[in-house]
Every structure is written in structure tokens, then in C-alpha cells.
């Protein structure tokens, strides 16, 4: 099969972002990338999204931080990370930047800190794009999450965009909202070059015998195959609402999952919780996808993308 058939070209204002295949890894599930280099060839992936970075190192939440659920897991890691300088000094230089698009996920509690992070990363060679985690509380607004309010989502997107120079900006949308398209449109208006969706769904688990929450943080983010139907719905809605490219995230486990996200309009997917099934899982997906395309007679992914056909039957009586 021609390599170009797996290639995805993501049209951006600053120039196309070309991925050799649509398999990216999701923030928070793939470390800084280097942890997985022993388990596969990073350059075989379409790209990676690093663990969320804050301006300063963060210690995260107390234990327990994770709990397994049916076809998924809850996490409340609390964004433990080495901070932007720790990442630039110790991790980024170890990544094969010339052959691998590296998207850096950023996290902050104010538009100003988001802006500082974007500015710091804007001139670092080798970074392909920024992914903005807006599922975090805005301390100046009583802890309301940026991603749950269209005005704040607009503001933070604009702040990052203005500080990031030519670096493409992707905003990661939360599913924990009434209307995800409303937030998506606000981010597009704020200047976002791409959107990724979805972040985790807020959930909870309890220890029945101990009569306690299973997580020290009480609530956490649900991920894994259990959330794929929600993610597909969100990607489909957002891709139909905005003009900018969308990346799908949520329960991607196999080649069919990737094709389903592309079918509803995504340009690529991010593989997250499946990395915990075994550390070589994401590395195997491009070959699995290629085999599946052949079986389904899909000639190339670019033309396959967004070809979902919805039967034109509006009511029971029309059947």
C-alpha cells in the first residue's frame, strides 16, 4: 500500500500539518514520550501529545489517584508535571523531533499564565503545535472551568494564540458541558487553529466496604472505551459546527475506532487509555489500520474522512 494513503494533511492558516498517519497519543497517557521509546519506534506514530505542562512543577493530587472501571478508568492525577523548563531541559531534547510531530499540552489557572506558557514555547524549535487544556479552573473566576464558559474559552484561546507566534494552537474541549458546539465556536472565534475532543468525563467511584470514595480527590476523569460513543457524538457535532480541523479523542482501542472517528469528521485521533493495556499498543495501530483499510477497500484516509452518510429519513412515517 502506498504510504500516502495513510497520510493526513491538516489544513492550517500557518501551513499544512502533515501526519504520516492519523495515530497520535493523548496527553497524560504517554508521559513525555521518552518513557515509551523502549516499547516501539516513536517515529512510526503520526505524532505525540505530551503530558500537560504548567509554568512551574506541580505535585498533583494525593493517593489514590486512579481506579479501574468497566471498560475504562477514572484518574485524578492532578497534573503532576516537571513544569515547562523541566520538560524543555530534560525531555524534549530526547525526542526525535525531525521525524515526529510533537504537540505540547499546556495547563494554567489564568489567561496570563496560559499566555506566558505559550510565549515560552513559541520559539522552541521542533514543537509542532500547542494543545490547550481548558478543563481547568480559572482562579480569577471562582474556580469556574475555562472550558465550561464560552466567554472564558474565547479569552484563553485568544491569549494563547496572541502569545504563540506561528505555532498552531489546538484547544482540547471538555465533554462536561451542555453544548460542546457553543464552546467550540467560541474557541474558533478566539483564533484556534484546531480543536481536539474530548477530554475525560467527570465521574466517581466508591469503595463500598470502606464507605469511602475510591479516589482521594473524590471525583476524577473517566476515559477508555466506555466513553467512545460520547466522544464520537461530540466530534461529529463539533466537526459539523466549525470550519477548523478536529482531532478525535476518547476510547480509541483498535483500527475500527480510528476509522469511525475519521468517518464522523476527525483528521486524526489520539490514543489514550489504550496505552495502559500494554505499552506497545499505539505503535501497533498504524499497521493494524493499514490492514483494515485494505479489508474495507478504503483507498486513502484523506478522502475517507467525513464521509458519514446519514439516511434522509426524518420520521417514522417516512419509513
Amino acid at each position, binding site marked *: 500500500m502506498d504510504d500516502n494513503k495513510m497520510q493526513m494533511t491538516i489544513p492550517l492558516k500557518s501551513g499544512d500539518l502533515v501526519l504520516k498517519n492519523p495515530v497520535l497519543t493523548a496527553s*497524560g*497517557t*504517554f*508521559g513525555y514520550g521518552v*518513557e*515509551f521509546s*523502549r*516499547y*516501539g519506534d516513536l517515529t512510526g506514530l503520526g505524532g505525540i501529545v505530551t*503530558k500537560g505542562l504548567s509554568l512551574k*512543577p506541580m*505535585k*498533583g493530587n494525593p*493517593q*489514590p*489517584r*486512579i*481506579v*479501574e*472501571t*468497566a*471498560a*475504562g*478508568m477514572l*484518574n485524578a*492525577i492532578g497534573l*503532576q508535571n*516537571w513544569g515547562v523548563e523541566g520538560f524543555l531541559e530534560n525531555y524534549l531534547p530526547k525526542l526525535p523531533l525531525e521525524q515526529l510531530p510533537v504537540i505540547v499540552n499546556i495547563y494554567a489557572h489564568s489567561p496570563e499564565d496560559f499566555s506566558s506558557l505559550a510565549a515560552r514555547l513559541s520559539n522552541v524549535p521542533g514543537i509542532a503545535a500547542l494543545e490547550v487544556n481548558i478543563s481547568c479552573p480559572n482562579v480569577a473566576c471562582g474556580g469556574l472551568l475555562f472550558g465550561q464558559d464560552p466567554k472564558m474559552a474565547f479569552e484563553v484561546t485568544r491569549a494563547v494564540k496572541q502569545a504563540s507566534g506561528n505555532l498552531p494552537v489546538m484547544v482540547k474541549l471538555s465533554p462536561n458541558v451542555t453544548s460542546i458546539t457553543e464552546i467550540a465556536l467560541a474557541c474558533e472565534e478566539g483564533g484556534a487553529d484546531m480543536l481536539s475532543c474530548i477530554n475525560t468525563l467527570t465521574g466517581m467511584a466508591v469503595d463500598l466496604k470502606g464507605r469511602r470514595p475510591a479516589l482521594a480527590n473524590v471525583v476524577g476523569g473517566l476515559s*477508555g*472505551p466506555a466513553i467512545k460513543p460520547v466522544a464520537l457524538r461530540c466530534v461529529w457535532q463539533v466537526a459539523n459546527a466549525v470550519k477548523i480541523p478536529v482531532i478525535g479523542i476518547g*476510547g480509541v*482501542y*483498535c483500527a475500527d475506532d480510528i476509522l469511525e472517528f475519521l468517518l464522523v469528521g476527525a483528521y486524526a485521533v489520539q490514543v489514550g*487509555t*489504550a*496505552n*495502559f*493495556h*500494554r*505499552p*506497545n499498543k499505539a505503535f501497533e495501530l498504524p499497521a493494524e489500520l493499514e490492514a483494515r483499510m485494505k479489508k474495507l477497500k478504503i483507498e486513502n484516509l484523506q478522502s475517507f474522512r467525513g464521509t458519514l452518510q446519514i439516511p434522509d429519513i426524518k420520521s417514522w412515517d417516512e419509513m
Partner: protein
Amino acid sequence: MSDRIHTLKVLDMVPHETATIKNRFYELRLEPPGWSNWSPGQFAMLRPAAWGGEQTWSKPISICSVNDKGLVFFFQVSGHGTRRLAQVRPGDDMIVVGPLGSKFAVYPDRPTLMLAGGMGLAPFVGYSEAHPNPGNLKLLFGHRLPLECYLYPACACKLGERTCRHENMNDEESFMAVLEENIAALAPVNGLALACGPGHFLRKVQEFSLKHGVDAQVSLESRMACGIGACLGCVVKPLLDEATGKNRSSKPQPKSMHQDMPAPVCACGPVFWVDSFKF
């Protein structure tokens, strides 16, 4: 394929049980992995190849022993995942990521006390098999259930051993007294204590070892998702010296244990020196 990921055939799944205790303890034997770099104390992430997306995590299980007859694990059914793990049968494929993590120290010339609580006996089977001077080894095994439930015979041969069964709170108290007495006895002979078992047992081992100035290591159990230090779901708090900013322990430590950040048990442990971290 990475040198740390193997697909191995299941050779045996042997239940360890009594007339009244069934379907809880299993000895799993896989075909030999051909490892040249395994050390007792390390663990592996196990995932039957037949599992799909419905089961999220592989299961971190302490390696019991490795030899030319196979790779042996001992586990207890404690939840949905281990219940499913117990259903594999000879001939099934098992995906094994390992060996992972840190190892128990080996000082052939120092008296070494292995402290095992229940399932914590598992790594000491391999430790006692691999030790160059087994005459210096002694085992203290605390357990709630009959010995038949555990791998006790595999570990106890040729060792100076003592077992303590505790079925109620009074037994527990007397066991703790025996535990302290045994740890204290290591101090004048420059002995080493190694422990694996439930959290409250390991806390006591830490307390008694520090109190009596005995070198000791404990193997921590934690919920793990990735097993390779990426997800940061299993973390421990390093104990740092305020003056130097370095770890308080004088023993060699992974880099992460010298920093004021939570350190992953899977990558920095599971075996830790007792003076290097806070429970």
C-alpha cells in the same frame, strides 16, 4: 518488538486451597521467558492476550521465580481483573511486560531476614533460590489463612523459618511483637531485613527498622495503570533532607527519589529502602 514485551504460553494454573477456602489463591506458571536480567523483587504486568478493551489495565504481579521450567507468579483474587486472570488455562497466550522495577538487595555475607505477610511470600521464593549464601537467610511468615493457601513449601525448604498465623486482633498483636523482636535482633549482627506484604505490615517493618537502626527494604503494592512510570497513578513521597535537598537515605536511589516530587512506585520501586520514603 521490545525486549520487555513477551507473549508466553500458560503452562499451569494451580489453585492453592483447602476444603473451605477455594478460588482465591493461584500459582500461575508460564513458559520460560529467557530473561537474563531478572532480579527478585521485580514485577511484571500480565494481560491474557484474549482480553479486549473491556479490561483496561494489565495486572502488576510480583515475580515469584524464573528458571528453565518456567516463569512463576502467585496471586490472590482480589477484584474483577484477578478473577478473570484466574480463568486462563494451559495453552492460552499471556502478554508479559517485564521484568519491571527495582530489586531486593543481596548481601551474601550479612544475615538476611525475609519478612513476608500473606501474599508477600511470593518474591522470596525466587530470592531464596537465587541467593548465593542461603545459610544466611531466615524467613518470618505472618499469615491469616492456613499454610496450604500460600506458596509456603516452595520457600521454606532449607531455610531457618518461623511462621505465625494470626486469626484475630490478639494474634496480630503478638505477631507484631515477634516482628519487632526479630528486626531488633538484626542490629548487633549488621543484618538486613526485606519485607513484602500488606500496607499495615510494611508500616510496622519501617517503624521497627528505623527504631532499631536496621537496614531494611520493603516492596510496596499500589494500583498501577501503565507500569512504566508514565501515568503517575502509583506514587510515593520521597523523604528529603532539608539541608542537602537530597534523599535522606544513604543508600543508592533513583534520580526521582532525590526530588521533591511524587515518585512512581512502578519505576522507582516497588522495592524501597525504608528510610527513603514516607507512607
